[in-house]
């Protein structure tokens, strides 16, 4: 009955199949869809205007200039934008528990995480991703590019997406235990994003260490960007950290998946 499943690739294919369906459904109303993206592009532009206004009063913040901060801002914005797109309905898992939709998903031969992430897949975040990308692109023109730096930049984009994905997923799992506190995750996901819009040198050492070794949010943009900008680590931490974003990504993802598995196990052991 089960024709050759492609092993590891099978979940990815299911994800794409489901996601494509949602995109097609949204595309049934093209004007509304495009307006939404355009709208979110303009709205997130306001976000960067805030930073630009900041620099009307100062020249550097935490020792970093506007263009350097723009690089940080763009990098973290792209990462969280991609991650936000990939996670689909993970943030809403509490609602799915309550409405019984989670049970229905469990009767299908697709891993639960894939189904939840693909559910109500939307390209709404394209606006935010584009805005962050534009800012990053502008800042990137001031970077002294070398092949190594290009590689680090690419790794940074992928790693930041994975790290934010892990944050979204891991912290949303609290909804398996208490369905009411979905806002808890925001402190780490959107909070993490906001934190990394600024150079971490504005924070005390303890916070920076926490963001490096406890929750690897600093690897989203800070360490790779130090390398891209050719800057010394203001806290005096070793330079090799600047190449470690993929490791941080793998570690975060593993952690998030473990938490997810534990959450699902809790759900199936206690019912709703």
């Amino acid at each position, binding site marked *: 009955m089960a024709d050759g499943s492609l092993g590891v690739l099978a979940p990815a294919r299911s994800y794409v199949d489901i996601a494509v*369906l949602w995109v097609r459904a949204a595309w049934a109303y093209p004007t509304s869809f495009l307006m939404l993206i355009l709208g979110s592009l303009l709205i997130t532009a306001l976000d960067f205007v805030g930073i630009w206004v900041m620099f009307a009063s100062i020249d550097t913040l935490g020792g970093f200039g506007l263009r350097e901060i723009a690089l940080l801002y763009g990098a973290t914005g792209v990462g969280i934008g991609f991650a936000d797109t990939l996670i689909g309905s993970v943030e809403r898992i509490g609602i799915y528990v309550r409405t019984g939709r989670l*049970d229905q998903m469990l009767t299908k031969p697709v891993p639960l995480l894939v189904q939840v992430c693909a559910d109500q897949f939307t390209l709404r975040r394209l606006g935010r991703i584009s805005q962050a990308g534009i800012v990053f692109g502008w800042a990137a023109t001031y970077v002294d590019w070398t092949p190594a730096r290009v590689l680090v930049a690419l790794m940074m984009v992928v790693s930041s997406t994975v790290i934010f994905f892990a944050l979204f997923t891991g912290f949303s799992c609290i909804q398996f235990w208490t369905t009411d506190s979905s806002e808890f995750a925001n402190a780490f996901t959107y909070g993490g994003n906001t934190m990394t819009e600024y150079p971490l040198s504005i924070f005390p050492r303890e916070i920076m260490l926490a963001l490096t070794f406890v929750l690897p949010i600093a690897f989203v943009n800070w360490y790779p960007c130090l390398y891209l900008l050719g800057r010394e680590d203001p806290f005096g931490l070793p330079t090799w950290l600047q190449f470690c974003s993929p490791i941080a990504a793998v570690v975060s993802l593993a952690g998030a998946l473990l938490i997810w598995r534990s959450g699902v*196990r809790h759900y199936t052991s206690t019912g709703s």
Partner: protein
Amino acid sequence: MSLIEVRDLERTFVLRRRSGGLRRAPSTVPAVHDLSFSIEAGEMVGYIGPNGAGKSTTIKMLTGILVPTSGEIRVAGLEPSARRTDLARRIGVVFGQRTTLWWDLPLRDSFGLLQKIYRVPDDRFRRNLDEFLELLDLGPLLDTPVRQLSLGQRMRGDIAAALLHDPEILYLDEPTIGLDVISKGRLREFLRTLNAERGTTLLLTTHDLQDIEALCRRVIVIDHGTAIFDGPLTDLHRQGGSTRTLVVDLVDAGPAIEVPGAVAWKVEGPRQWLSFPADASAAPIVAAVAVAYDVADLSIQEPAIEDVIRDLYSATEPRP
């Protein structure tokens, strides 16, 4: 080995009651207790019991949504909670009150997506889809978003969706709830055909005794988490000592009707309620009443599940 095997199944829930402030007094509720049965391939089994008896809990454990507290379950040789996705390919589930279809999308898209998810080869998918579209009269509804469908239409869509991948077992949880009489009849007809032609094993939980009468040769009755009856339907009536009721509207009010085989237990003006054994035919009683009395109208009431089960416990005492 049987297709579905359940042995000494236990499932307890811990209820966290908040008794003021943060203090919680936990209490355990045994939802399923000491449950054992086996179902062979091709059977059509009714799984009935009052509300809260543990029917949904059992189905959840059979489909792998819920882990048993103890005991053994094997479905198609697999342990449901451990091999959930493998098992999912071989079963279909229809929830009566919630749809498995994608709410905002047209029916056609849901089916197309399910084909991809279940990896059904094109030719088999086409064949199944055409057959179900015809039998369930879904053709004109293919492009309608699921949220715009009526309850009956949605139920038919759900059933088709659950069968597109040729599952060996179909679980139906209250499938006819909220449907009108005609739709119920057609649905039952479809399920009968399904079982006869494809040998799909059916496990049906329902409150509607008519569903059971129409579809199931075997019935498992569950009450307070444990099976109190497991056998042919005909035995159920006999064992439970359940009775049916003949409601007679006489032309004029009169004293209690007396006919062999029935007992009048309620008289309200010209209307009288007569009870007689459920496995007996109503025909001779009706004839006897019509001959001896001036009858304006009469009807037959089936016993409710609750009554059947209640009677199961007090089998010595014929009602009322």
